[in-house]
């Protein structure tokens, strides 16, 4: 049971007071409808392209053409191989070994967490040992949905999740929300892990912008 904090009540009242200070206008339905329809059309076009890519992949063409980081073993044949041929590619990497996961984006794993660089200077880091990740709570954490190129908000987006609690097959990568809204299909992405199945790893995928923060895996129309 959550213990009440002395600040609970003041914060609650303060937030309501701040919220009540504003007077929202009516929703701009005409603009929303117009731009929403445009978005639907773009999304349908993007999905058509995605399906073409999937067809090519099942023919074994795309997997062999992926730009792998030199020296990175592709361990789809390891003990955590996907349950079906369409499952995520699994890459077992050495600690500190850099993997290119999208154009200009490198990821590497260490025992204390995972780091990545992108087009913003500096190394970004998510720790798995600082207490922010509940290691006793298996699941997917560390939500990241960002454009591969920050200057191209409508361009491809990198979706990255840290998973915790071990993984035996693709079905363990529960990237699904509780209310039934589907996040990216884990079978479409790639898993990066350290050797010895340490109980955590990183799953990632690159998807069109229209598929971020929205139901995925099907068409509306």
């Amino acid at each position: 049971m959550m213990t009440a904090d002395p600040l609970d009540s003041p914060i609650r009242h303060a937030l309501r007071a701040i919220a009540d200070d504003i007077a929202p206008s009516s929703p701009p339905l005409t603009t929303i409808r117009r731009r929403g329809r445009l978005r639907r059309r773009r999304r349908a076009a993007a999905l058509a392209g995605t399906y073409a890519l999937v067809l090519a992949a099942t023919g074994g063409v795309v997997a062999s053409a992926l730009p792998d980081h030199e020296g990175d073993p592709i361990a789809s044949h390891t003990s955590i191989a996907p349950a079906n041929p369409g499952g995520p590619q699994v890459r077992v990497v050495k600690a500190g070994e850099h993997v290119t996961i999208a154009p200009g984006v490198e990821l590497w794993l260490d025992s204390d967490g995972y780091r990545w660089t992108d087009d913003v200077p500096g190394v970004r880091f998510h720790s798995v040992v600082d207490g922010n990740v509940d290691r006793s709570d298996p699941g997917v954490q560390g939500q990241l949905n960002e454009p591969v190129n920050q200057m191209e908000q409508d361009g491809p987006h990198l979706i990255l999740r840290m998973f915790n609690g071990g993984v035996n097959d693709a079905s363990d990568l529960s990237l699904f929300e509780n209310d039934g809204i589907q996040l990216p299909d884990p079978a479409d992405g790639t898993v990066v892990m350290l050797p010895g199945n340490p109980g955590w790893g990183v799953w990632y995928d690159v998807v069109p912008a229209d598929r971020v923060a929205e139901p995925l895996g099907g068409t509306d129309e």
Partner: protein
Amino acid sequence: LTDDSGFAEFADASWPRLVRIAHLLTGDFHEAEDLVQATFIKVYAHWPRLEREGADVHAYVRRALINNNNSRLRRRRVAQYLTPSLPDVARGDVRSADRAVDDRSAIAQALVSLPARQRTVVVLRYFEDLSDRQIADALGCSLGTVKAHAHRALAKLRQHPAFSDESLFSGAR
């Protein structure tokens, strides 16, 4: 005949509350309306499917709003990097004859001073009245992470002058 049966009603009913949530997340009314509009455009694009699948639209919209806000903050960080001398936000030293307005400004300032994830947890917990488990679902993180963010947010707010004023506590109860 339109393909968005029920959307207008949903938008009319939920727009004001979502703008208020966005206002608490962003600290800026205009940014809040822009954020909610961008979110509704995405919702509209998926409306037929959301209706067909009977999804929890409110939970979906809330999550989309949070994700859009995170993207907005990320773009802002990039903009700050590219623009070394940013214009002042002029949030400090707000003076007004109305003490209540001063208090709210100070509290809003305290809220805005929190890191984005902590601020989001505070807003969802204390304005949306979500449980920590529901917040974890909305943020796509663990229950432990939510508790950690909440703990750190409260610790920071406790240090802020806006929440050290005894009159605030007496007035809130």
